[in-house]
Protein backbone atom coordinates (compact mmCIF):
# COMPACT_ATOMS: atom_id res chain seq x y z
CA UNK A 1 0.00 0.00 0.00
CA UNK A 2 1.29 3.42 -0.82
CA UNK A 3 0.72 6.26 1.63
CA UNK A 4 -1.72 8.04 -0.65
CA UNK A 5 -4.03 5.10 -1.32
CA UNK A 6 -7.50 4.73 0.12
CA UNK A 7 -6.50 1.28 1.35
CA UNK A 8 -3.74 2.79 3.46
CA UNK A 9 -6.14 5.33 4.95
CA UNK A 10 -8.43 2.48 5.96
CA UNK A 11 -5.51 0.43 7.33
CA UNK A 12 -4.18 3.40 9.28
CA UNK A 13 -7.55 4.17 10.85
CA UNK A 14 -8.00 0.58 11.99
CA UNK A 15 -4.41 0.20 13.21
CA UNK A 16 -4.42 3.52 15.06
CA UNK A 17 -7.72 2.86 16.82
CA UNK A 18 -6.70 -0.63 17.88
CA UNK A 19 -3.40 0.76 19.16
CA UNK A 20 -5.05 3.59 21.09
CA UNK A 21 -7.67 1.36 22.66
CA UNK A 22 -5.33 -1.54 23.46
CA UNK A 23 -4.08 -2.12 27.00
CA UNK A 24 -0.64 -0.71 27.65
CA UNK A 25 1.12 -4.05 27.74
CA UNK A 26 -0.33 -5.05 24.36
CA UNK A 27 0.40 -1.86 22.44
CA UNK A 28 3.86 -2.93 21.34
CA UNK A 29 2.43 -6.11 19.83
CA UNK A 30 -0.26 -4.15 18.01
CA UNK A 31 2.38 -1.84 16.58
CA UNK A 32 4.57 -4.72 15.46
CA UNK A 33 1.64 -6.49 13.87
CA UNK A 34 0.58 -3.31 12.07
CA UNK A 35 4.08 -2.78 10.70
CA UNK A 36 4.31 -6.36 9.48
CA UNK A 37 0.85 -6.32 7.92
CA UNK A 38 1.83 -3.13 6.14
CA UNK A 39 5.07 -4.62 4.86
CA UNK A 40 3.37 -7.86 3.85
CA UNK A 41 1.05 -6.00 1.49
CA UNK A 42 4.16 -5.15 -0.51
CA UNK A 43 5.70 -8.61 -0.53
CA UNK A 44 5.31 -11.74 1.56
CA UNK A 45 8.71 -13.35 0.80
CA UNK A 46 10.53 -10.15 1.58
CA UNK A 47 8.68 -9.94 4.88
CA UNK A 48 10.41 -13.20 5.71
CA UNK A 49 13.74 -11.59 4.80
CA UNK A 50 13.00 -8.65 7.08
CA UNK A 51 12.10 -11.01 9.91
CA UNK A 52 15.24 -13.10 9.56
CA UNK A 53 17.56 -10.10 9.41
CA UNK A 54 15.83 -8.58 12.43
CA UNK A 55 16.20 -11.74 14.53
CA UNK A 56 19.84 -12.31 13.54
CA UNK A 57 20.86 -8.70 14.20
CA UNK A 58 19.06 -8.75 17.52
CA UNK A 59 21.08 -11.81 18.52
CA UNK A 60 24.32 -10.16 17.39
CA UNK A 61 23.48 -7.10 19.49
CA UNK A 62 23.05 -9.29 22.55
CA UNK A 63 26.39 -11.01 21.94
CA UNK A 64 28.21 -7.69 21.64
CA UNK A 65 26.47 -5.89 24.43
CA UNK A 66 26.38 -8.53 27.09
CA UNK A 67 30.05 -8.85 27.79
CA UNK A 68 31.18 -11.91 25.93
CA UNK A 69 34.60 -10.38 25.55
CA UNK A 70 36.11 -7.89 23.17
CA UNK A 71 37.33 -10.42 20.62
CA UNK A 72 33.99 -12.15 20.27
CA UNK A 73 32.27 -8.77 20.12
CA UNK A 74 34.56 -7.69 17.31
CA UNK A 75 33.93 -10.88 15.36
CA UNK A 76 30.18 -10.48 15.82
CA UNK A 77 30.32 -6.87 14.59
CA UNK A 78 32.40 -7.83 11.59
CA UNK A 79 30.07 -10.69 10.70
CA UNK A 80 26.99 -8.51 11.03
CA UNK A 81 28.34 -5.56 9.05
CA UNK A 82 29.71 -7.66 6.24
CA UNK A 83 26.55 -9.75 6.08
CA UNK A 84 24.17 -6.79 6.06
CA UNK A 85 26.16 -4.87 3.47
CA UNK A 86 26.31 -7.95 1.27
CA UNK A 87 22.55 -8.48 1.47
CA UNK A 88 22.00 -4.86 0.51
CA UNK A 89 24.54 -5.05 -2.30
CA UNK A 90 23.04 -8.21 -3.76
CA UNK A 91 19.56 -6.82 -3.93
CA UNK A 92 20.51 -3.39 -5.17
CA UNK A 93 23.22 -4.28 -7.60
CA UNK A 94 21.76 -7.58 -8.78
CA UNK A 95 21.76 -6.58 -12.43
CA UNK A 96 25.40 -5.54 -12.36
CA UNK A 97 26.41 -8.75 -10.60
CA UNK A 98 24.57 -10.75 -13.24
CA UNK A 99 26.31 -8.88 -16.03
CA UNK A 100 29.69 -9.51 -14.43
CA UNK A 101 28.79 -13.16 -13.87
CA UNK A 102 27.71 -13.48 -17.48
CA UNK A 103 31.04 -12.15 -18.62
CA UNK A 104 33.33 -14.20 -16.41
CA UNK A 105 31.08 -17.24 -16.10
CA UNK A 106 32.04 -18.93 -19.38
CA UNK A 107 35.71 -18.94 -18.39
CA UNK A 108 34.67 -21.10 -15.45
CA UNK A 109 32.64 -23.37 -17.62
CA UNK A 110 29.31 -21.85 -16.64
CA UNK A 111 27.09 -21.06 -19.55
CA UNK A 112 24.79 -18.18 -18.88
CA UNK A 113 21.23 -18.69 -19.99
CA UNK A 114 19.66 -16.09 -22.21
CA UNK A 115 16.90 -15.42 -19.72
CA UNK A 116 17.47 -12.26 -17.76
CA UNK A 117 16.34 -12.49 -14.19
CA UNK A 118 14.74 -9.34 -12.96
CA UNK A 119 14.97 -9.03 -9.24
CA UNK A 120 12.85 -6.36 -7.69
CA UNK A 121 14.62 -5.06 -4.64
CA UNK A 122 12.71 -5.48 -1.38
CA UNK A 123 10.93 -2.29 -0.52
CA UNK A 124 12.67 -0.19 2.09
CA UNK A 125 15.76 -2.37 2.19
CA UNK A 126 18.17 0.54 1.90
CA UNK A 127 16.54 2.09 4.91
CA UNK A 128 16.11 -0.81 7.29
CA UNK A 129 19.53 -2.30 6.62
CA UNK A 130 21.02 1.06 7.52
CA UNK A 131 19.02 0.96 10.74
CA UNK A 132 20.38 -2.50 11.52
CA UNK A 133 23.99 -1.51 10.80
CA UNK A 134 23.72 1.62 12.94
CA UNK A 135 22.28 -0.41 15.81
CA UNK A 136 25.12 -2.92 15.75
CA UNK A 137 27.78 -0.23 15.66
CA UNK A 138 26.10 1.85 18.36
CA UNK A 139 26.05 -1.15 20.68
CA UNK A 140 29.69 -1.93 19.88
CA UNK A 141 30.76 1.65 20.48
CA UNK A 142 28.87 1.58 23.77
CA UNK A 143 26.52 4.38 22.82
CA UNK A 144 23.55 2.19 23.46
CA UNK A 145 22.81 -0.84 25.62
CA UNK A 146 21.78 -3.90 23.61
CA UNK A 147 18.00 -4.18 23.28
CA UNK A 148 16.85 -7.31 25.08
CA UNK A 149 13.26 -7.35 23.87
CA UNK A 150 12.93 -8.78 20.37
CA UNK A 151 9.49 -7.18 20.05
CA UNK A 152 10.81 -3.70 20.76
CA UNK A 153 13.73 -4.27 18.44
CA UNK A 154 11.36 -5.51 15.75
CA UNK A 155 9.34 -2.34 16.16
CA UNK A 156 12.46 -0.26 15.64
CA UNK A 157 13.42 -2.01 12.44
CA UNK A 158 10.00 -2.39 10.85
CA UNK A 159 8.25 0.77 12.10
CA UNK A 160 5.90 1.22 9.19
CA UNK A 161 5.87 5.03 8.89
CA UNK A 162 9.63 4.95 8.40
CA UNK A 163 10.23 1.73 6.55
CA UNK A 164 9.35 2.84 3.02
CA UNK A 165 11.72 5.76 2.74
CA UNK A 166 12.94 6.89 6.12
CA UNK A 167 13.71 9.04 7.99
CA UNK A 168 16.50 6.76 9.23
CA UNK A 169 16.07 7.03 12.97
CA UNK A 170 18.81 5.95 15.38
CA UNK A 171 18.01 3.17 17.80
CA UNK A 172 18.86 5.26 20.84
CA UNK A 173 16.55 8.04 19.74
CA UNK A 174 13.76 5.54 19.11
CA UNK A 175 14.05 3.52 22.31
CA UNK A 176 14.40 6.63 24.47
CA UNK A 177 10.75 7.32 23.65
CA UNK A 178 9.54 3.98 25.06
CA UNK A 179 7.76 3.06 21.85
CA UNK A 180 4.66 0.96 21.94
CA UNK A 181 3.75 1.73 25.51
CA UNK A 182 1.54 4.81 25.52
CA UNK A 183 -0.87 6.92 23.53
CA UNK A 184 -0.01 10.30 22.11
CA UNK A 185 -1.66 13.32 23.64
CA UNK A 186 -4.49 14.76 21.61
CA UNK A 187 -2.31 17.75 20.84
CA UNK A 188 0.40 15.53 19.43
CA UNK A 189 -2.11 13.62 17.34
CA UNK A 190 -3.33 16.90 15.90
CA UNK A 191 0.21 17.95 15.08
CA UNK A 192 0.72 14.63 13.38
CA UNK A 193 -2.43 14.92 11.28
CA UNK A 194 -1.60 18.46 10.27
CA UNK A 195 1.84 17.34 9.20
CA UNK A 196 0.39 14.48 7.18
CA UNK A 197 -1.87 16.89 5.29
CA UNK A 198 1.06 19.24 4.70
CA UNK A 199 3.17 16.33 3.48
CA UNK A 200 0.45 15.30 1.03
CA UNK A 201 0.27 18.91 -0.13
CA UNK A 202 4.02 19.02 -0.79
CA UNK A 203 4.04 15.75 -2.66
CA UNK A 204 0.86 15.96 -4.73
CA UNK A 205 0.22 19.63 -5.24
CA UNK A 206 3.79 20.87 -5.51
CA UNK A 207 6.11 18.04 -6.51
CA UNK A 208 3.91 16.10 -8.92
CA UNK A 209 2.71 19.27 -10.57
CA UNK A 210 6.27 20.44 -11.18
CA UNK A 211 6.97 16.93 -12.38
CA UNK A 212 4.39 17.25 -15.18
CA UNK A 213 6.75 19.54 -17.02
CA UNK A 214 10.16 18.57 -15.69
CA UNK A 215 9.67 14.83 -16.27
CA UNK A 216 8.91 15.51 -19.89
CA UNK A 217 12.17 17.38 -20.43
CA UNK A 218 14.26 14.71 -18.70
CA UNK A 219 12.50 11.82 -20.43
CA UNK A 220 13.10 13.23 -23.89
CA UNK A 221 16.07 15.56 -23.56
CA UNK A 222 17.02 15.35 -27.22
CA UNK A 223 13.56 16.52 -28.24
CA UNK A 224 13.56 19.45 -25.82
CA UNK A 225 14.63 23.00 -26.52
CA UNK A 226 17.42 24.63 -24.52
CA UNK A 227 14.87 26.83 -22.78
CA UNK A 228 12.91 23.77 -21.67
CA UNK A 229 16.05 22.06 -20.44
CA UNK A 230 17.18 25.05 -18.40
CA UNK A 231 13.75 25.44 -16.84
CA UNK A 232 13.81 21.75 -15.97
CA UNK A 233 17.26 22.06 -14.40
CA UNK A 234 16.11 24.94 -12.20
CA UNK A 235 12.87 23.30 -11.15
CA UNK A 236 13.96 19.72 -10.59
CA UNK A 237 15.64 20.46 -7.23
CA UNK A 238 12.35 21.94 -6.04
CA UNK A 239 10.43 18.92 -7.27
CA UNK A 240 12.81 16.55 -5.50
CA UNK A 241 12.71 18.63 -2.34
CA UNK A 242 8.92 18.83 -2.26
CA UNK A 243 8.60 15.13 -3.07
CA UNK A 244 10.97 13.89 -0.43
CA UNK A 245 10.15 16.51 2.17
CA UNK A 246 6.49 15.66 1.68
CA UNK A 247 7.16 11.98 2.09
CA UNK A 248 9.24 12.60 5.21
CA UNK A 249 6.55 14.82 6.71
CA UNK A 250 3.91 12.17 6.12
CA UNK A 251 6.20 9.66 7.85
CA UNK A 252 6.83 11.97 10.80
CA UNK A 253 3.12 12.76 11.07
CA UNK A 254 2.21 9.08 11.03
CA UNK A 255 4.78 8.38 13.72
CA UNK A 256 3.21 10.98 15.96
CA UNK A 257 -0.09 9.13 15.86
CA UNK A 258 1.73 6.37 17.72
CA UNK A 259 3.57 8.84 19.95
CA UNK A 260 6.92 8.40 18.20
CA UNK A 261 8.83 11.53 17.21
CA UNK A 262 10.93 10.92 14.09
CA UNK A 263 14.01 12.95 13.16
CA UNK A 264 13.69 15.56 10.45
CA UNK A 265 15.28 15.18 7.03
CA UNK A 266 15.42 18.74 5.75
CA UNK A 267 16.30 22.13 7.13
CA UNK A 268 15.69 24.81 4.51
CA UNK A 269 18.31 23.30 2.17
CA UNK A 270 18.15 26.08 -0.39
CA UNK A 271 19.17 28.62 2.23
CA UNK A 272 22.56 26.92 2.62
CA UNK A 273 25.49 29.31 2.35
CA UNK A 274 27.85 26.77 0.83
CA UNK A 275 27.86 23.22 -0.43
CA UNK A 276 28.97 21.75 2.89
CA UNK A 277 26.11 23.54 4.59
CA UNK A 278 23.77 22.19 1.94
CA UNK A 279 24.63 18.59 2.76
CA UNK A 280 23.93 19.29 6.41
CA UNK A 281 20.41 20.36 5.44
CA UNK A 282 19.48 17.80 2.77
CA UNK A 283 18.36 14.23 3.54
CA UNK A 284 19.77 14.83 6.97
CA UNK A 285 19.24 11.35 8.35
CA UNK A 286 21.11 9.75 5.48
CA UNK A 287 24.02 12.18 5.51
CA UNK A 288 24.42 12.04 9.29
CA UNK A 289 24.25 8.26 9.10
CA UNK A 290 27.05 8.14 6.57
CA UNK A 291 29.02 10.72 8.54
CA UNK A 292 28.78 8.76 11.77
CA UNK A 293 29.23 5.25 10.39
CA UNK A 294 31.37 5.72 7.30
CA UNK A 295 33.06 9.10 7.18
CA UNK A 296 34.19 9.44 10.78
CA UNK A 297 35.59 5.91 11.20
CA UNK A 298 37.31 6.18 7.83
CA UNK A 299 38.67 9.62 8.61
CA UNK A 300 39.93 8.34 11.94
CA UNK A 301 41.75 5.48 10.23
CA UNK A 302 43.30 7.90 7.75
CA UNK A 303 44.03 10.72 10.18
CA UNK A 304 47.77 10.39 9.78
CA UNK A 305 47.39 11.17 6.07
CA UNK A 306 46.44 14.79 6.79
CA UNK A 307 44.58 16.64 4.07
CA UNK A 308 44.78 13.69 1.70
CA UNK A 309 43.05 11.53 4.28
CA UNK A 310 40.33 14.14 4.59
CA UNK A 311 39.85 14.31 0.85
CA UNK A 312 39.64 10.54 0.52
CA UNK A 313 37.16 10.22 3.36
CA UNK A 314 34.92 12.99 2.01
CA UNK A 315 35.09 11.57 -1.46
CA UNK A 316 34.29 8.04 -0.32
CA UNK A 317 31.37 9.41 1.68
CA UNK A 318 29.88 11.17 -1.30
CA UNK A 319 30.39 8.21 -3.61
CA UNK A 320 28.51 6.18 -1.04
CA UNK A 321 25.65 8.69 -1.09
CA UNK A 322 25.53 8.41 -4.85
CA UNK A 323 25.71 4.66 -5.00
CA UNK A 324 23.18 4.23 -2.18
CA UNK A 325 20.60 5.55 -4.62
CA UNK A 326 21.23 2.83 -7.18
CA UNK A 327 23.57 0.97 -9.45
CA UNK A 328 23.89 3.48 -12.25
CA UNK A 329 26.90 5.37 -13.51
CA UNK A 330 24.95 8.58 -13.18
CA UNK A 331 24.67 8.04 -9.44
CA UNK A 332 28.38 7.27 -9.17
CA UNK A 333 29.22 10.44 -11.07
CA UNK A 334 26.73 12.36 -8.97
CA UNK A 335 28.55 11.21 -5.88
CA UNK A 336 31.93 11.97 -7.43
CA UNK A 337 30.99 15.49 -8.50
CA UNK A 338 29.44 16.22 -5.13
CA UNK A 339 32.57 14.80 -3.56
CA UNK A 340 34.83 17.12 -5.52
CA UNK A 341 32.73 20.12 -4.54
CA UNK A 342 32.64 19.07 -0.92
CA UNK A 343 36.39 18.38 -0.72
CA UNK A 344 37.03 21.82 -2.13
CA UNK A 345 34.68 23.28 0.46
CA UNK A 346 36.21 21.30 3.32
CA UNK A 347 39.79 22.17 2.44
CA UNK A 348 39.01 25.86 2.19
CA UNK A 349 36.64 25.96 5.19
CA UNK A 350 39.04 27.57 7.63
CA UNK A 351 40.39 30.13 5.18
CA UNK A 352 36.90 31.14 4.12
CA UNK A 353 35.75 31.55 7.73
CA UNK A 354 38.74 33.76 8.50
CA UNK A 355 38.13 35.79 5.34
CA UNK A 356 34.53 36.52 6.26
CA UNK A 357 35.53 37.42 9.79
CA UNK A 358 37.79 40.10 8.37
CA UNK A 359 35.20 41.44 5.92
CA UNK A 360 31.85 41.67 7.73
CA UNK A 361 30.06 43.51 4.92
CA UNK A 362 30.93 40.73 2.51
CA UNK A 363 29.72 38.27 5.11
CA UNK A 364 26.34 39.98 5.03
CA UNK A 365 26.23 39.85 1.23
CA UNK A 366 27.11 36.20 1.46
CA UNK A 367 23.74 35.52 3.03
CA UNK A 368 22.26 36.15 -0.43
CA UNK A 369 25.07 35.24 -2.81
CA UNK A 370 25.90 32.08 -0.90
CA UNK A 371 22.53 30.38 -1.32
CA UNK A 372 22.29 31.52 -4.95
CA UNK A 373 25.65 30.05 -5.86
CA UNK A 374 24.99 26.90 -3.87
CA UNK A 375 21.63 26.42 -5.54
CA UNK A 376 23.27 26.57 -8.95
CA UNK A 377 25.91 24.04 -7.97
CA UNK A 378 23.22 21.75 -6.61
CA UNK A 379 20.87 22.16 -9.58
CA UNK A 380 23.55 21.28 -12.07
CA UNK A 381 24.87 18.32 -10.11
CA UNK A 382 21.28 17.06 -9.78
CA UNK A 383 21.23 16.66 -13.56
CA UNK A 384 23.33 13.56 -12.98
CA UNK A 385 20.88 12.43 -10.36
CA UNK A 386 17.87 12.71 -12.65
CA UNK A 387 19.10 11.86 -16.14
CA UNK A 388 18.64 8.35 -17.43
CA UNK A 389 22.22 7.99 -18.60
CA UNK A 390 25.53 9.79 -18.58
CA UNK A 391 25.21 10.82 -22.22
CA UNK A 392 21.75 12.25 -21.62
CA UNK A 393 23.03 14.11 -18.58
CA UNK A 394 25.76 15.64 -20.68
CA UNK A 395 23.22 16.53 -23.35
CA UNK A 396 21.00 18.29 -20.81
CA UNK A 397 23.95 20.17 -19.37
CA UNK A 398 25.39 21.26 -22.68
CA UNK A 399 22.08 22.27 -24.19
CA UNK A 400 20.66 24.01 -21.17
CA UNK A 401 23.52 26.52 -20.99
CA UNK A 402 22.74 28.39 -24.26
CA UNK A 403 19.35 29.36 -22.84
CA UNK A 404 21.14 31.83 -20.54
CA UNK A 405 21.82 33.93 -23.60
CA UNK A 406 18.14 33.97 -24.62
CA UNK A 407 16.10 34.53 -21.47
CA UNK A 408 12.97 35.12 -23.53
CA UNK A 409 12.97 31.45 -24.42
CA UNK A 410 12.33 30.52 -20.83
CA UNK A 411 8.83 31.94 -20.84
CA UNK A 412 8.03 30.06 -24.02
CA UNK A 413 9.54 26.92 -22.52
CA UNK A 414 7.31 27.20 -19.45
CA UNK A 415 4.24 27.48 -21.65
CA UNK A 416 5.33 24.45 -23.61
CA UNK A 417 6.24 22.22 -20.69
CA UNK A 418 3.08 22.84 -18.71
CA UNK A 419 0.72 23.39 -21.65
CA UNK A 420 -0.26 26.93 -20.89
CA UNK A 421 0.46 29.42 -18.16
CA UNK A 422 -2.18 28.52 -15.57
CA UNK A 423 -0.48 25.31 -14.37
CA UNK A 424 2.72 27.22 -13.76
CA UNK A 425 0.87 29.91 -11.86
CA UNK A 426 -0.48 27.20 -9.58
CA UNK A 427 3.07 25.84 -9.17
CA UNK A 428 4.41 29.23 -8.14
CA UNK A 429 1.55 29.79 -5.70
CA UNK A 430 2.00 26.30 -4.27
CA UNK A 431 5.77 26.72 -3.90
CA UNK A 432 5.34 30.02 -2.09
CA UNK A 433 2.75 28.47 0.21
CA UNK A 434 5.05 25.54 0.91
CA UNK A 435 8.01 27.74 1.76
CA UNK A 436 5.82 29.96 3.90
CA UNK A 437 4.73 26.92 5.87
CA UNK A 438 8.32 25.73 6.24
CA UNK A 439 9.28 29.15 7.51
CA UNK A 440 6.40 29.14 9.95
CA UNK A 441 7.49 25.78 11.29
CA UNK A 442 11.12 26.82 11.68
CA UNK A 443 10.25 30.00 13.52
CA UNK A 444 7.33 28.47 15.45
CA UNK A 445 4.99 31.09 14.03
CA UNK A 446 1.98 28.83 13.76
CA UNK A 447 1.23 29.40 17.40
CA UNK A 448 0.62 33.06 16.71
CA UNK A 449 -0.96 32.68 13.28
CA UNK A 450 -3.20 29.67 13.69
CA UNK A 451 -3.37 27.89 17.02
CA UNK A 452 -4.69 30.82 19.00
CA UNK A 453 -7.54 31.47 16.60
CA UNK A 454 -11.13 30.46 17.43
CA UNK A 455 -12.18 26.89 16.79
CA UNK A 456 -14.41 27.51 13.77
CA UNK A 457 -11.64 29.43 12.00
CA UNK A 458 -9.09 26.70 12.59
CA UNK A 459 -11.52 24.10 11.32
CA UNK A 460 -12.14 26.14 8.17
CA UNK A 461 -8.41 26.28 7.56
CA UNK A 462 -8.09 22.51 8.01
CA UNK A 463 -11.03 21.75 5.72
CA UNK A 464 -9.61 24.16 3.15
CA UNK A 465 -6.19 22.50 3.36
CA UNK A 466 -7.68 19.04 2.78
CA UNK A 467 -9.71 20.43 -0.11
CA UNK A 468 -6.63 21.91 -1.71
CA UNK A 469 -4.87 18.55 -1.43
CA UNK A 470 -7.86 16.76 -2.99
CA UNK A 471 -8.63 19.19 -5.78
CA UNK A 472 -5.21 20.53 -6.70
CA UNK A 473 -3.26 17.31 -6.35
CA UNK A 474 -2.01 15.34 -9.32
CA UNK A 475 -2.82 11.70 -8.64
CA UNK A 476 -2.20 10.04 -11.96
CA UNK A 477 1.60 9.84 -11.89
CA UNK A 478 2.98 6.80 -10.21
CA UNK A 479 5.20 6.48 -7.20
CA UNK A 480 7.28 8.64 -4.84
CA UNK A 481 10.77 9.14 -6.20
CA UNK A 482 12.48 8.02 -2.99
CA UNK A 483 10.52 4.81 -2.44
CA UNK A 484 12.51 3.06 -5.14
CA UNK A 485 15.77 3.48 -3.25
Amino acid sequence: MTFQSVEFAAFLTVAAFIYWLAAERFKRYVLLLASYVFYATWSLPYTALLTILTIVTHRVGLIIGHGHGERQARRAVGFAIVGLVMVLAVFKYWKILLTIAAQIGPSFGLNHSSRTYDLIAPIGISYYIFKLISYVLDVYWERLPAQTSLIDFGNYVSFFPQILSGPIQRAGDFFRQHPGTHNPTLARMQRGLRLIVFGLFQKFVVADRIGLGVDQAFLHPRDSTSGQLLVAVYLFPWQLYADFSGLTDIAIGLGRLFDIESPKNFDAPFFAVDIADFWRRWHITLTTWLTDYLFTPLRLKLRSWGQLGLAIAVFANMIAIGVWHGAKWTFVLFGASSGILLVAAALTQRKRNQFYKRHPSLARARRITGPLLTFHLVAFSFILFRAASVSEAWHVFAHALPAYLHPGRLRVAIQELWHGGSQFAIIVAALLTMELCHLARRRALLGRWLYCRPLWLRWCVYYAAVSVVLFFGIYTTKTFIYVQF
Partner: protein
Amino acid sequence: MDKEQQIREKLNVIFRNIFDDETLQIYDTMSAADVENWDSLTHINLIVAIEKGFKISMTTKEVQALSNVGELVRLVVRKLP
Protein backbone atom coordinates in the same frame (compact mmCIF):
# COMPACT_ATOMS: atom_id res chain seq x y z
CA MET B 1 43.92 16.10 40.79
CA ASP B 2 46.79 18.29 39.80
CA LYS B 3 47.59 16.12 36.83
CA GLU B 4 43.97 16.25 35.67
CA GLN B 5 43.95 20.02 36.02
CA GLN B 6 47.04 20.27 33.83
CA ILE B 7 45.42 18.04 31.26
CA ARG B 8 42.29 20.22 31.26
CA GLU B 9 44.32 23.36 30.74
CA LYS B 10 46.26 21.83 27.90
CA LEU B 11 43.04 20.56 26.33
CA ASN B 12 41.54 24.03 26.61
CA VAL B 13 44.43 25.46 24.60
CA ILE B 14 43.96 22.80 21.94
CA PHE B 15 40.22 23.45 21.78
CA ARG B 16 40.75 27.20 21.41
CA ASN B 17 43.18 26.58 18.61
CA ILE B 18 41.09 24.10 16.66
CA PHE B 19 37.86 26.09 16.90
CA ASP B 20 39.46 29.52 16.43
CA ASP B 21 37.89 30.89 19.57
CA GLU B 22 40.05 32.54 22.23
CA THR B 23 37.19 32.84 24.66
CA LEU B 24 36.32 29.13 24.67
CA GLN B 25 36.26 27.40 28.07
CA ILE B 26 35.72 23.67 28.23
CA TYR B 27 33.59 21.93 30.84
CA ASP B 28 32.62 18.34 31.50
CA THR B 29 29.21 18.22 29.85
CA MET B 30 30.31 20.17 26.78
CA SER B 31 29.68 18.45 23.46
CA ALA B 32 29.60 19.23 19.74
CA ALA B 33 26.22 20.91 20.04
CA ASP B 34 27.71 23.58 22.31
CA VAL B 35 30.49 24.82 20.04
CA GLU B 36 29.84 26.62 16.79
CA ASN B 37 32.45 25.12 14.49
CA TRP B 38 32.47 21.62 15.97
CA ASP B 39 31.33 19.27 13.20
CA SER B 40 32.49 15.96 11.82
CA LEU B 41 35.36 17.62 9.97
CA THR B 42 36.79 19.63 12.84
CA HIS B 43 36.16 16.74 15.25
CA ILE B 44 38.91 14.72 13.60
CA ASN B 45 41.25 17.70 13.62
CA LEU B 46 40.60 17.91 17.35
CA ILE B 47 41.40 14.23 17.89
CA VAL B 48 44.60 14.50 15.83
CA ALA B 49 45.69 17.59 17.75
CA ILE B 50 45.01 15.87 21.09
CA GLU B 51 46.95 12.76 20.05
CA LYS B 52 49.89 14.91 18.92
CA GLY B 53 49.71 17.19 21.93
CA PHE B 54 49.68 14.40 24.52
CA LYS B 55 51.63 11.87 22.45
CA ILE B 56 48.92 9.26 22.85
CA SER B 57 47.00 7.11 20.42
CA MET B 58 43.29 6.36 20.56
CA THR B 59 41.39 3.55 18.86
CA THR B 60 38.35 4.13 16.66
CA LYS B 61 36.13 2.47 19.23
CA GLU B 62 37.42 4.69 22.04
CA VAL B 63 36.83 7.85 19.99
CA GLN B 64 33.38 6.80 18.86
CA ALA B 65 32.35 5.98 22.43
CA LEU B 66 32.98 9.58 23.58
CA SER B 67 29.89 11.65 24.16
CA ASN B 68 31.22 14.74 25.96
CA VAL B 69 34.38 16.53 27.05
CA GLY B 70 34.31 14.92 30.51
CA GLU B 71 34.68 11.47 28.96
CA LEU B 72 37.46 12.82 26.74
CA VAL B 73 39.37 14.03 29.77
CA ARG B 74 39.04 10.67 31.48
CA LEU B 75 40.19 8.89 28.30
CA VAL B 76 43.29 11.08 28.05
CA VAL B 77 44.05 10.45 31.75
CA ARG B 78 43.77 6.69 31.15
CA LYS B 79 46.03 6.85 28.12
CA LEU B 80 48.82 8.79 29.72
CA PRO B 81 51.62 6.72 31.23
